[in-house]
């Protein structure tokens, strides 16, 4: 690897009023776009990619903080190397980052649509890698729930065990995945490579180094997951009093879509960003600690990670002070016991999220059972639970006028 000189500390300049205003406008724009994209499954993938890029920025920013914030400011620091220069500003939804490169056709395209491409590419890859671990448990729930109640309805006493057993098996599977996924998502964000998500030994080592932080992150998930859970069950409250008048379906549709957009904007996006920021900082700290303890080698870092850590002077191994044999044993026992307790608590906190998923999906069944298999704060932030049935009922009369005979002969109530 190249030898890179660490950045010298320079007192940062105070941000001007104008730059604060610009940042506020950009932040609001990003927020609005994210909330809107989250209303459609396909577009929510773009949000996943965009959040991955933001997470990478947070990871490097955390290293910058841990190194004592050298350089005039963070953007100036990241502009100092080609591997991090794209992190100088928040990622764009469409435009690619400004780079000093010859104005070729490719460069122009990168500038015009590079952001969109990166959001899409990283969003698809991250959605897939997360799904590979999370979906087995949650699809088992969806299947077991369906099969179990189908069997119960038909009073299949002979197979009564199947639904509940499968459902219960899905719980540890999902929780085990969730012990791993938040750190792995950040690993993938930091390296921008999908393969990094599956560097199991490395990711698990980072988790083990930060068990208490994992407890904190799982607690945060257990609290913030109330946003999607309560939003799902919100339709049972509200307009449905005994004195309710007949609801105009078109206005019901509009009301439902507005409600979901508002909740996405006011609660879901902030919750998502908070969770990913905490996870990013956790990852950054874990990597710094592991590198300095010598428990992961420099070769295990991605090039961009190594460069950033090297420039910040964080790459040096700092061996732990020598302890007596008894003290080492005590620390080992404490660490081992602590890890087991922390792992159990973390699993318990994820079980609270499972309970929320279960209760909310029981109270309000979502279309295609997606309340089971997509958790907006963990997987794709697709957050419009407006029933398809309502959309069809509103749109069908228009279709009937335009294409007589288009209605399906099998009509659901």
């Amino acid at each position, binding site marked *: 690897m190249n030898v890179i000189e660490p950045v010298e500390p320079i007192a940062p300049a105070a941000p001007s009023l104008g730059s604060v205003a610009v940042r506020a406008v950009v932040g609001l724009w990003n927020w609005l776009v994210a909330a809107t994209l989250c209303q459609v499954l396909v577009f929510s993938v773009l949000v996943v990619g965009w959040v991955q890029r933001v997470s990478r920025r947070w990871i490097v920013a955390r290293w910058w903080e841990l190194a004592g914030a050298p350089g005039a400011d963070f953007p100036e620091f990241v502009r100092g190397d080609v591997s991090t220069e794209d992190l100088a500003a928040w990622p764009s939804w469409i435009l690619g980052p400004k780079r000093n490169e010859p104005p070729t056709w490719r460069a122009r395209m990168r500038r015009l649509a590079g952001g969109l491409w990166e959001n899409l590419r990283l969003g698809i890859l991250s959605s897939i890698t997360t799904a590979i671990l999370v979906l087995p448990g949650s699809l088992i729930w969806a299947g077991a*729930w369906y099969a179990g*109640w189908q069997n119960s309805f*038909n009073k299949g006493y002979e197979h009564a065990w199947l639904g509940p057993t499968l459902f219960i098996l899905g719980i540890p599977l999902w929780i085990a995945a969730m012990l791993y996924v938040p750190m792995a998502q950040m690993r993938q964000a930091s390296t921008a490579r999908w393969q990094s998500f599956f560097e199991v030994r490395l990711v698990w080592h980072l988790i083990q180094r930060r068990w208490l932080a994992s407890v904190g992150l799982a607690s945060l998930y257990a609290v913030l997951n109330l946003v999607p859970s309560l939003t799902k069950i919100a339709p049972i409250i509200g307009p449905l*009093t005994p004195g309710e008048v007949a609801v105009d379906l078109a206005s*019901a549709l509009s009301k439902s879509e507005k409600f979901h957009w508002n909740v996405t904007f006011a609660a879901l996006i902030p919750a998502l960003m908070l969770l990913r920021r905490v996870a990013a900082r956790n990852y950054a700290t874990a990597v710094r600690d592991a590198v300095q303890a010598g428990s992961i080698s420099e070769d295990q870092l991605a090039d961009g990670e190594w460069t950033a850590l090297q420039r910040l002077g964080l790459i040096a191994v700092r061996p732990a002070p020598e302890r007596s044999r008894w003290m080492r044993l005590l620390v080992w026992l404490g660490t081992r016991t602590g890890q087991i307790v922390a792992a159990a608590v973390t699993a318990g906190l994820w079980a609270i999220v499972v309970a929320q998923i279960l209760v909310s999906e029981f109270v309000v069944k979502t279309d295609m059972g997606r309340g089971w298999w997509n958790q907006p704060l963990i997987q794709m932030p697709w957050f419009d639970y407006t*029933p398809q049935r309502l959309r069809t009922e509103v749109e069908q009369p228009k279709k009937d006028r335009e294409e007589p005979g288009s209605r399906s002969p099998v009509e659901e109530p």
Partner: protein
Amino acid sequence: MNTTSVPRRQFLSSLGLGALALQPGLFGATPERPAYRGPNVILIRYGGGARRRESIDPRHTYSPFLCHELTKRGVLFTRMEIDQFRDLNTSHGEGTLYLLTGRYQKFRDVAESRPEIGRKFLGARFEATVPTLFEYLRDAFDVPEHQALLINGEDRADEEFYNFSNHHLFGVEYRSQTLSLRRYKMWLLAGELAGDKLTDSQRAKKAAALAELRELDYRADKEAGQGREVDGFWSRWQDYYGRTGLVNPRGDALLTELTVRALRQLRPRLLMVNYQDCDYVHWGYLDHYTRALSIMDRGIETIVREVENDPEYRNNTVFVVVPDCGRDDNPFMAVPCQHHFNTRSAHEIFALVFGRGVPRGVTVDRRVSQVQIAATIGRMMGFPTPHAETQALEEAWS
């Protein structure tokens, strides 16, 4: 202060008043009751929870026999409601008791008044404080308990104990009998324990299983035994379907089968069938609701055919089909009728009355109340329902 709890009835008995308190004719001999000669009544709880739309609306019905055929044979009350102005629950246990007692009440699980029996999650262990139709009938006429029948499913076990009230002039002595899988299992276990083929460990297991089933009876005045006629019914059931529970029909189809066999073997005068499977829609699959409606529709058709084929029942039976409650009509949910959370739609039901003496092909679209069913059945069968709160549905007879 240390007190000993003594059941009310035991207390009265110890005073020598028990026998008097159990009988309506205070200080007198039990009055001779006349034999019942009126029409038989089959009350079908079109449950658990059904909306008008999928039931009686010809464009959306999943009950074609009810909607297209039976409505021509009787009086259809299209705008029956559960009271919307009082704080009432629109649920199955409550609705069943509104039908049976003719009175709206805010029911509470018995654990609230008798904590010693323990809480039960989502328990519907209710006790009517005013007499049920079964008690009125058996008070007014010489009708044995096996001819006042409640047929109940296995998923809502609490509801098989709605067969008598705790009214001081009525109660367990005027109960109906109940037919359910629980009762069959109890009969089987009691028979096994009475024999001498069990080993000690088998005996202990069977006794524990029987005790567990008995525990489900939450009433202060617990029922004792099922009576010779019902024992005979279960004996024949065992001969035909065996002991496993895997041969007989299942779900709501089981209730239909129990009803048909009861009609043939027990000859009930007043019979209530507590269909329940629509309520599976709580778990989120709309087809459970619509299929349950279809199964119930076929069940009603089977019962009607059975009555038509029986000379004693034909032209001497009145059917009353009425839901225990409606269901939501929530446009914001993928399954709009998943629950019945006391919404307007959950209060909106219907009633169909047909059979002997009932005008044919009449539709009544004025608002009527679910509690009018009890008074209507009372009037048809010729007994007063003084504790029911409203008048009968006058349109139900010529």
